[in-house]
C-alpha cells in the first residue's frame, strides 16, 4: 500500500462553487465525460450556474446509462405497474432499493439480485468477473442480509475461437477466486457458447442473502446530526475510466497517467467487510447503509442523501486514499471495490469504531446528515459540490428512444427449420438417432459443465441441499425447520432474437419450471436484461418487447420482479448480441428435505413424461448445431407452466416422485441423458406410444424443445396416486420407461442402447478438450 499523503498540499486547481458562479465562461469537458449537449444544458439549468468540475463528475456518471437507466426507465415501469395485490403480498421491499426483499415466513426474509459485469469481463476477464461477484454481494449486505449463495450465468463466443479460452479461463478463475474466498457456495448458473458474444461476453452474477425481518436495512441518510462514515478498502484510481479527462484539474504532472479502467478486487477485504457489516447490524449500529459500486462516492452520497429526510455535508479530504494524487473528481468517481458508506448516530460512534477495530477495517468519518436538503461536498472546507441530491440520483434524463419492429424480422421468422436445407439429412434410422444424441450431449451448450463448476466451492456454509447440474440450486435457510429457497437462472438468446416478446417469456417460463421441478413454490423474479445499443431502433424494439413480454408473463404466473439490472450497448462493432434477458426465479420450501433432485436413483421406479411434444425445432440446440437460426421459438403457454408447476410441487410435497428434470434446451434427449448420468443410473425407455399420441416422429420427440414438459421418476407404490392427480388436472402424462440400475445403459427400446460410459465420455469430454 502506498504512502498516505498527510499534508493537504495545494496540488489541485480546486474548482469551488464560488468560483463557478463567477466564471460561467469556463469550458468543461462534458462531452468527454459522456454527457450530451442537452444533458449538460439540463445540469446548468438545475444548478442555475455552470457545474464545478466535481459536480460535473457526479452528474456525468450518475446520469450515465448504467446508473440512470435513461433509455429503459420508461419501459421498466411496467414491472411496477403490472402487479396485483396478490403479487405484493410477500414483497417486503420492491424495485429501487439495492435489492428486493421477499417474505419467507417464520420471520425470515430473503433478498436476491442479478447484475451484469459484461464489458469489464471482456477487457480483463479475471477481475471483471471477480468484481462482478463482489458488487452483487455488497448489494445483498446493504439490505442487512447475510449472503448465502451466488450463481453465474455466462455467455461466451464460439468455443473454438482462439479468444474464447482467454475469456473462459479468466472469468471462471475470477468467479472462483473471488467467490470461493468469500465463503459463499456457488449453486448454479448457465454456460452458453455463441459467436454472437465473441467481442462481448456476458458475465452476469446473482447473489442471494437471508435475514430476519427486523434486520432489513435501507439506503437512506436520516436524522440530522447523524454521522456519515466510509469504511472498508481505501479509495484508489481503479475504475475511474472517463474521469481521467478531469485530470486537467491536476497541477501534478508526475501523477500516474494510466489508470486501470477495470476495478481490481480483494476478496479477503470483502469477506472481512461482510462479517464486519453483519456485526454492525447485529448491534443495530447503523441507521442507513449503502455499498459503493458504480459511480462510487457520487452514487453513495447522492442516493443516501436523496432517500433520507434531510441533506448531507461531507469533507472529501477525509476519504482515505490509496493514491494521494487523486483529484476531487476522481475520488468522487472512483469505483474502488470493497467499500461501504453508513450513517451512524453520535451515540453509536464508539461502538461502531470498536467493530471496525475488531475486524481491522479502516474507516473515516466524512461528515454528517443535515436538515438543509442539500448535498454539500467540501475540499479543505471549500464547497465544491452544492446540489439537490435528488437531481443527481433520481432526476436524470429519461429518453423515449424510437423503436420499430426490424424490417428483417418477418423474413427471419419465415425461415423455419423443418424442411430447410439445414434439415436435409434429418436423422431417422436408429444408428443415426444414437449418433445425433451423442452429438447433442457433447455439443458446447449441452455438454457437462463440471469443468467450470468443479472450480467453485458448492459446500461452504453447510446449507447447500442442491447445486448445479440439478435444475435449481437449493439452500437451507433455517436449520431447525428446514425452511429454504431454490434459485434458477435462464435465458435463450436465440429464442429472444426470433421473438423478443415470447423469448423473454420463455426465459421466465424455464426458470419458473426449474424452480418448480425441485418442488419449490416460485415467489419472485430478478432480471438482467442484456441488450445492444438502445440508439438502434431494432435493438430498442427488442428491449421494449422483452420487457413487455416479461412483465405480462409475471402477471400471469403471479410472481413479481423485485429488482434487477439493465446492460445496454452489448455489441461487437455494430453487431448487437442476441437480446438476452436473463431471468432468475426464486422459490420457497417449507422444508428443503422434500426437494426433488434431477437424477434417477431407485431401481424399478417408473419414468413418466409430463406434457405433450410438438414440432418446436426452430431456434433449438439441434438447429443451432446444424447452423440454422430462423422461424419462431417454442410456443409459450403460461397456464400449462402453472399447471405443470403445481403438479411438480404437489408431487414433491406428498412424496409421489423421487426425481424430476425439466425439458428445455436439447429436449427429451438431453433430459434423459442428464437424469441417467447424474447418479450413474440407467433406464429402459419406450417412445413409440407417446410419439404416436402426439403425432410426431421419434426425432422430433427427442430433439424438439416444446415447453411445459418434465420427466419424473415415480416409486411403484405412488403410481396410482400420481396418475390420478395428473388425470384430475387433465394434464397429459405418459409412462415412458423404468429405471434400470443394473443395465448401466440408456436403453431406448427399439432404437438403440447407449452404455452410460459412452454417454459420459461424450458429455464430459468437451470442455476439457477445449480448455485443458
Amino acid at each position, binding site marked *: 500500500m502506498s504512502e498516505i499523503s498527510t499534508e493537504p498540499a495545494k496540488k489541485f486547481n480546486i474548482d469551488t462553487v464560488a468560483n463557478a458562479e463567477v466564471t460561467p465562461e469556463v469550458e468543461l469537458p462534458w462531452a468527454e465525460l459522456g454527457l450530451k449537449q442537452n444533458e449538460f444544458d439540463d445540469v446548468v439549468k438545475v444548478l442555475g450556474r455552470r457545474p464545478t468540475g466535481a459536480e460535473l463528475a457526479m452528474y456525468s456518471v450518475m446520469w450515465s446509462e448504467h446508473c440512470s437507466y435513461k433509455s429503459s426507465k420508461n419501459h421498466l415501469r411496467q414491472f411496477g405497474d403490472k402487479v396485483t395485490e396478490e403479487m405484493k403480498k410477500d414483497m417486503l421491499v420492491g424495485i429501487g432499493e439495492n435489492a428486493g426483499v421477499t417474505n419467507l415466513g417464520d420471520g425470515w426474509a430473503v433478498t436476491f439480485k442479478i447484475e451484469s459485469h459484461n464489458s469489464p469481463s471482456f477487457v480483463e476477464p479475471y477481475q471483471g468477473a471477480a468484481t462482478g461477484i463482489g458488487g452483487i454481494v455488497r448489494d445483498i449486505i446493504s439490505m442487512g442480509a447475510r449472503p448465502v449463495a451466488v450463481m453465474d450465468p455466462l455467455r461466451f463466443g464460439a468455443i473454438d475461437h482462439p479468444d474464447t479460452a482467454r475469456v473462459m479461463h479468466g472469468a471462471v478463475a475470477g468467479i472462483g477466486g473471488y467467490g470461493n474466498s468469500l465463503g459463499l457456495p456457488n449453486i448454479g448458473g448457465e454456460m452458453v457458447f455463441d459467436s454472437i458474444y465473441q467481442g462481448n461476453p456476458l458475465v452476469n452474477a446473482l447473489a442471494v442473502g437471508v435475514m430476519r425481518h427486523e434486520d432489513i436495512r435501507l439506503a437512506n441518510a436520516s436524522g440530522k446530526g447523524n454521522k456519515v462514515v466510509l469504511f472498508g478498502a481505501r479509495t484508489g484510481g481503479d475504475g475511474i475510466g472517463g474521469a481521467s479527462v478531469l485530470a486537467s484539474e491536476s497541477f501534478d504532472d508526475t501523477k500516474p497517467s494510466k489508470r486501470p479502467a477495470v476495478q481490481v478486487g480483494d476478496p479477503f477485504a470483502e469477506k472481512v467487510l461482510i462479517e464486519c457489516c453483519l456485526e454492525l447490524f447485529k448491534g443495530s449500529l447503523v441507521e442507513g447503509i449503502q455499498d459503493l459500486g458504480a459511480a462510487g462516492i457520487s452514487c453513495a452520497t447522492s442516493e443516501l442523501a436523496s432517500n433520507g429526510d434531510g441533506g448531507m455535508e461531507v469533507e472529501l479530504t477525509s476519504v482515505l486514499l490509496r493514491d494521494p494524487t487523486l483529484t476531487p473528481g476522481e475520488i468522487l468517481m472512483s469505483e474502488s471495490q470493497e467499500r461501504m458508506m453508513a450513517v451512524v448516530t453520535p451515540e453509536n460512534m464508539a461502538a461502531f469504531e470498536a467493530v471496525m477495530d475488531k475486524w481491522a477495517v479502516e474507516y473515516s468519518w466524512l461528515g454528517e446528515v443535515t436538515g438543509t436538503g442539500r448535498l454539500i461536498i467540501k475540499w479543505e472546507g471549500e464547497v465544491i459540490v452544492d446540489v439537490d441530491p435528488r437531481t443527481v440520483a433520481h432526476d436524470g434524463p429519461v429518453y423515449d428512444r424510437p423503436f420499430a419492429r426490424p424490417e428483417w424480422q418477418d423474413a427471419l421468422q419465415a425461415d423455419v427449420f423443418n424442411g430447410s436445407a439445414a434439415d436435409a439429412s434429418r436423422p431417422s434410422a436408429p444408428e443415426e438417432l444414437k449418433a445425433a444424441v451423442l452429438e447433442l450431449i457433447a455439443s458446447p451448450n449441452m455438454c457437462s459443465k463440471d469443468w467450470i463448476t468443479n472450480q467453485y466451492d458448492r459446500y461452504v456454509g*453447510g446449507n447447500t441441499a442442491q447445486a448445479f447440474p440439478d435444475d435449481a440450486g437449493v439452500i437451507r435457510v433455517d436449520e431447525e425447520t428446514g425452511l429454504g429457497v431454490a434459485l434458477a437462472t435462464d435465458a435463450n438468446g436465440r429464442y429472444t432474437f426470433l421473438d423478443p416478446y415470447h423469448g423473454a417469456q420463455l426465459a421466465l417460463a424455464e426458470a419458473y419450471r426449474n424452480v418448480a421441478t425441485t418442488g419449490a413454490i416460485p415467489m419472485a423474479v430478478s432480471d438482467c436484461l442484456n441488450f445492444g445499443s438502445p440508439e438502434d431502433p431494432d435493438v430498442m424494439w427488442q428491449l421494449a418487447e422483452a420487457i413487455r413480454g416479461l412483465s405480462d408473463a409475471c402477471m400471469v404466473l403471479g410472481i413479481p420482479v423485485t429488482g434487477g439490472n439493465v446492460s445496454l450497448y452489448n455489441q461487437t462493432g455494430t453487431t448487437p448480441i442476441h437480446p438476452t434477458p436473463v431471468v432468475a426465479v426464486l422459490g420457497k420450501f417449507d422444508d428443503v*428435505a422434500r426437494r426433488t433432485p434431477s437424477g434417477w436413483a431407485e431401481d424399478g421406479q417408473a419414468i413418466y413424461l409430463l406434457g405433450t411434444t410438438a414440432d418446436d425445432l426452430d431456434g433449438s440446440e439441434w438447429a443451432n448445431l446444424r447452423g440454422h437460426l430462423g422461424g419462431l421459438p417454442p410456443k409459450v403457454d403460461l397456464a400449462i407452466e402453472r399447471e405443470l408447476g403445481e403438479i411438480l410441487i404437489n408431487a414433491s410435497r406428498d412424496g409421489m416422485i423421487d426425481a424430476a428434470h425439466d425439458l428445455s434446451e436439447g429436449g427429451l434427449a438431453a433430459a434423459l441423458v442428464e437424469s441417467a448420468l447424474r447418479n450413474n443410473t440407467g433406464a429402459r425407455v419406450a417412445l413409440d406410444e407417446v410419439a404416436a399420441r402426439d403425432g410426431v416422429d421419434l426425432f422430433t420427440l427427442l430433439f424438439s424443445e416444446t415447453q411445459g414438459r418434465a420427466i419424473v421418476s415415480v416409486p411403484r407404490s405412488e403410481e396410482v396416486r400420481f396418475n390420478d392427480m395428473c388425470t384430475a388436472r387433465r394434464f397429459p402424462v405418459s409412462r415412458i420407461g423404468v429405471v434400470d440400475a443394473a443395465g448401466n445403459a440408456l436403453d431406448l427400446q427399439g432404437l438403440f442402447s447407449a452404455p452410460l460410459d459412452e454417454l459420459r465420455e461424450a458429455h464430459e469430454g468437451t470442455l476439457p478438450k477445449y480448455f485443458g
Partner: protein
Amino acid sequence: MTETPLIGGATLAPVDSRLAGARIGVVTFPGTLDDRDASRAVRLSGATAVDLWHADTVLADVDAVIIPGGFSYGDYLRAGAISRFAPLMSQIIDAANSDAKLPVLGICNGFQILTESHLLPGSMIKNDHLKFLCRDTVLRVENNNTVWTNAYAPGAEITIPLKNQDGQYIADEKTLDALEAEGRVAFRYVGTNPNGSRRDIAGISNAAGNVVGLMPHPEHAVETGYGPGHTGTDGLGFFTSVLNTLLGGK
C-alpha cells in the same frame, strides 16, 4: 467470532449429557470460511462448540481445538503464513506440545496453518493442475490410532469433499519416509490423486497422534442431505473420535 444471528442454529439435544460437557474450540481468523460448518459438526457429534478468536491471548477452557478451512488473511504471502503468528496460535502450539497433548485438528487452511506452525511437517503448494478443485474424494484411513481417527476401522474408505487451490502436499523424501515409517500418514487419496500430493497423502498426524491435519473437509460430510451425494456422513467420525478420547473410551 460472533455466532451469526441470521442462520438458525441446529439445536440438537445430545443423547449423552457427558458429550455436551466436551468443549471443542473452533478458531476464526479474518478470512476463515468454514468455522460455522466446523461448529455444526461439533454440535452434531453431541459436543459443545466454543467460538475462539484469533486475537485472543488466552486459550479459553476447551478440551480440543479445530482450525477450520478458508483463506485466512486472504492466503496472502503464503497460505497460513500470517495466521501462524496470531496470538491464539502460540497458545495452541504450546498446549498441543504440552504433556496435556491438546487435540488439534487442522482442516484445509487449518492444515496449512499447522504446517506453517511446525506442528506438522511438510507444506502445501498449488494443485498440480493449477486450478481450484471442488470434488468428492475417497480417502483411506491409514492410521486409526490418532485422537481424530479412532472411530474409523483400519483401512476404511471414506468419502469426503475436497475444495482448494493449494492442496498439493509436499515434503522432502526423508520426511516422507519418516512419516510412513512412524505410521503418521493418516489418510491417502484412493484412485485419482486430485492435486499431485506426494505419495497420495491427504492428511498426517504428529508423533503423539493428538495433532492431525488434512486437506479434505470432513465437516462437509456430517449431515444427510448436505454432504457428498447428498447422503454421505463419513466425516462425522473425526468428531466422534475426539470425544472417544476425551471421554476415556480410547
